[in-house]
């Protein structure tokens, strides 16, 4: 990576930007509808914060992380958010860089059981042996489920996995055709509230950190680094605002989730905020900081585990080195530019 080039170009661009007379540049942003970490994209657009930094966002949404990653190959988008498993896949297949963390969703990726079986499985986790678990293979939900199994001393071979989309997992469990399933929020809440299922183990319970990733296409990062930094600043500001204005935030979340066809209770939405920590600029820089030349950051450790999980799944022969695709370069750019830094830390 030619870091000094980026920095140089960014310097010029930011100098121009602060000189005023900012032209609106188009940036193509991708996300998945009705997810907690997508909410900032929606809020920022409603509030006009992209425009404030001279960005004109063009959104594209995807039903799942993998098609989203695949679409980066056709340059359908420049920057975006996704789960950490798709982010690693994207790093291996299409040179996607991870440039920030959307949220810590360890609690939101979980193993659920139907209402009538949950108590039994919780009391005696060993009874899960021999069961069928429905889940979306190669997803953060899959990662959480396998971490839970490991916590109980079970192996992948002890159970039968059936892979399908989240909608099918919900159908299968709500109709009693499957007792155990791996899901992520808000699907977990849909299943709990509308079909009486119970969350029996989350990634958090199993000690598995499941981050969400902010990504950029490597060639876009090289050609338009200043846009990437601005994109990050907008995202960070959105979380600041959302966390400072809970009531309004819940109202917007309700609207945003409904657009994605998800209708869950206010309590569940509040729970999303309470169980999924987000990171402001200083915190992002801290967890992504690499001590020394060869040191690993906290985030590196999380992604190394996820890479190992995907390798064990047979997705690729060698997991990528976190230092090859995770970079805090753009967060640093935000941090160095007083105007962007102030913008990113605004809570109004």
């Amino acid at each position: 990576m030619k870091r000094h080039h980026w920095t140089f170009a960014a310097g010029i661009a930011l100098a121009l930007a602060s000189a005023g007379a900012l032209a609106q540049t188009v940036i193509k942003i991708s996300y998945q509808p009705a997810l907690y970490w997508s909410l900032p994209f929606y809020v920022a657009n409603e509030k006009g914060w992209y425009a404030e930094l001279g960005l004109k966002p063009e959104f594209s949404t995807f039903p799942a992380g993998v098609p989203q990653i695949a679409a980066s190959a056709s340059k359908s988008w420049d920057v975006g958010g996704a789960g950490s498993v798709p982010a690693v896949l994207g790093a291996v297949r299409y040179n996607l860089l991870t440039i920030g963390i959307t949220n810590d969703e360890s609690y939101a990726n979980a193993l659920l059981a139907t209402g009538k079986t949950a108590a039994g499985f919780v009391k005696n986790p060993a009874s899960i042996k021999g069961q069928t678990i429905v889940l979306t293979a190669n997803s953060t939900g899959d990662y959480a489920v396998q971490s839970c199994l490991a916590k109980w001393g079970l192996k992948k071979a002890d159970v039968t996995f059936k892979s399908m989309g989240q909608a099918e997992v919900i159908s299968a469990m709500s109709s009693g055709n499957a007792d155990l399933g791996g899901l992520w929020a808000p699907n977990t809440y849909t299943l709990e509230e509308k079909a009486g299922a119970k969350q029996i183990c989350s990634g958090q319970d199993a000690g598995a950190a499941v981050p969400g990733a902010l990504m950029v296409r490597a060639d876009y990062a090289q050609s338009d680094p200043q846009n990437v930094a601005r994109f990050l600043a907008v995202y960070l500001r959105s979380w600041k605002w959302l966390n400072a204005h809970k009531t309004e935030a819940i109202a917007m979340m309700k609207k945003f989730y409904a657009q994605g066809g998800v209708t869950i209770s206010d309590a569940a939405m509040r729970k999303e905020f309470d169980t999924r920590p987000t990171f402001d600029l200083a915190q992002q820089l801290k967890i992504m900081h690499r001590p020394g030349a060869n040191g690993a950051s906290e985030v590196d450790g999380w992604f190394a585990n996820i890479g190992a999980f995907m390798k064990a799944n047979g997705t690729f022969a060698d997991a990528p080195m976190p230092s090859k695709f995770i970079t805090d370069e753009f967060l640093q750019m935000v941090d160095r530019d007083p105007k962007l830094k102030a913008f990113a830390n605004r809570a109004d």
Partner: protein
Amino acid sequence: MAHDERRRPVWVGVATFAVLIVAWFALTTWTSTIGPGRFPSPREAFDALRQIWVQGYADARLPVHALHSAKLVLLGFVAAVGLGVPLGLAMGWSRTCEAFANPTFLLLRPIPPLAWIPLAIVWLGLGDAAKVLVIWFAAFVPAVINSYSGVRSIEPHLVEAARTLGVSRRRMVTEVLIPGALPMIFGGLRLSLQACWTTLVAAELIGAIAGLGHVLYQASLDLFPAMIVVGMVAVAVTAALMTIALDIVERRAMPWRRA
């Protein structure tokens, strides 16, 4: 000249494929015009084929996937033909039957079989039954329509003649109606089989333990273009083999058409 049974020279076909394969090498391996993330090189495709043939991929080896898919197609196909052909014949023969059955048929026919998948899961679960139901929907419609048209296309004076000769109802069905409608019926079966196959791949894309659609689904989750190509080729080859098998049955069933 546009009329006589033109023989396509075999060498042209062979040459076409040879050119294509050379082009494939040229665009991927030699010049990298098409990046490995977009389309695999022949080498990668071969490695993927070896992987699925030797070690297996998506929980099973290639023949297991193919057989599983073929079994489901056959189940759905036989069930659809078993119900669809008699219904079509009855609707073709009896106006009363047609008028009564037609509304249901009109209501269900335009709904694509794939749209039944969500309902099939909640009604029948995740096993093979749900997939067979979806496949059944796909094959049922062409089976009925073509049997119906087959009966209607029988020369009326043939039926008249049989009637004046006072043949029994049973002989009317077995010796006049079925043989007369058979060519159309087989046309319908061919469409049915193709529809079954298309639908199965989609049904398996949505979740299964084994099957060629499952291979495609898994390969798309892994973003593994070489395996996607292997899966697509396997789908095509299996479908072609089944069509050939149906051709053989057709020729056996209608020996008089051989000339």
